[in-house]
């Protein structure tokens, strides 16, 4: 299982290194400008989920900066 994930991550990095040849023209961003195409569509939902999983699991963050708190339950 883990090796699968690592392959996924490295192939992702490989894709990114080809950055300069990727992308769209300035006028081709109508889809990317939509609310539902933003990386975080609902900030409260994201924060809520982060807090729930922070309180129940040993991992947190990754997306951005988390909110904190003890999560002691």
């Amino acid at each position, binding site marked *: 299982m883990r090796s699968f994930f690592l392959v996924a991550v490295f192939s992702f990095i490989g894709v*990114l290194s080809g950055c300069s040849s990727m992308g769209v023209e300035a006028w081709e961003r109508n889809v990317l400008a939509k609310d539902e195409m933003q990386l975080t569509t609902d900030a409260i939902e994201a924060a809520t989920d982060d807090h729930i999983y922070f309180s129940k699991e040993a991992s947190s963050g990754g997306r951005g900066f988390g909110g904190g708190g003890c999560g002691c339950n």
Partner: protein
Amino acid sequence: MSKKDMRSISATLAAATCTLLGTGAPQPVQAQEEPGWDFNTALLYYGEQDDRIQDLSVSVLTRKVFVDDRILSIGLTVYALTGASPNGALVQSVPQTFTKPSGKKTFTTAPGELPLDNTFRDSRVALSLDWQQPLGRLYAFNVGASASAEFDYLHVGVNAKLSRDFNNRNTTLSGGVAVAQDELDPVGGVPVGLTRMRNVDERTGRTRIESKDIFDVIFGVTQVVSKNFLVQLNYSYSDSSGYLSDPYKIVSVVDGTTGDAVPLPPADGPSHLNFYEHRPDSRVKHSLYAQGKYYMSGKVLDASYRYMTDDWEIDSHTIDIRLRWPVGERSYFEPHLRFYSQTAAEFYHLSLIDGDPLPGYASADYRLGDFDAITAGLKFGWKIGGSDEMHVRLEAYRQSGNLSRSQLIGNQADRDNYPDLNAIIFQFGYMFGK
């Protein structure tokens, strides 16, 4: 009046007004609405089965966009928490008595039941502030602060982030730092790790307040791949130091052959031998987070993967998939699946063996064990009025622990020492004023 006739009216009127006033307007009108505040509000219920934790919270996130895309966001969440949480002790075939964290009373767990500490009745208030603004054409900058308070816990933090666009804005690199300080002031004081659970009114070996410092760094790349495909990759580093244990958690001490908890002579205190847990005083985490958003004729696939590893030897994988599926012009469904898997911390011990030398660190907290979790949910959102939106979300969360036979001693194999955690999440959200 037909639409075409209607349109001609303003022109006719302008001409007539010009005749009346003897002059036209020297300049055309320029009026813009001062952007107001927009609000994102939510009511959330999180409830665990078997009378464990129930959490009700209300969140309000308000945002104001100032001239030229400078944005102020203020968030406030109030939580009300009740219920019980496993204290780390093992299930036994006899009743077990424990001293409450306050040190003033005891409670007893029935035979065959997982010992739960039911003193949780807490409220939490969390506040966040964020200011975001472009710097020139290609840079953007944001600073933020967060604070939260519980009756026994205080968190304050600040963060800053800078990003720059490259490659005709198709690539964005960003970097940020955050620092936070947390302070614990638990009921009955902070116990010393790996010492025996105290009797009622025993006051030795406790400090009142402990704290921890957290330092985070994040680097991210966002890349536009095509007109409808966007990816993000983040690396984050997090360093916590200070008091990282949970002052309310304990570890059972058992007989090396039977696996049963070691009984203590009768006293106004615990019936069996338990130690307060003790975790290292520092933790360094690394995570890689990748997210992709893909638009396919109205539907949006949002998939992310996170790999986390730390020096407590916890590795975790998280996969999160959402598919936003529009229904008509004004509503959508969004199924959500999340898979999580983690390995145990190196100092995770279901129990400690009586007579063996004490390990440096030990915790039986189920959250540091080896487990898998799955979340499945569905969200339905609909637009009201111009751009206001409401949504409801219902999700189920299940955590199942992985204990191998080799970790269990004697009778432990006959008891469910790592029961599944089942919870539901319900959220109602309302966004308005955009």
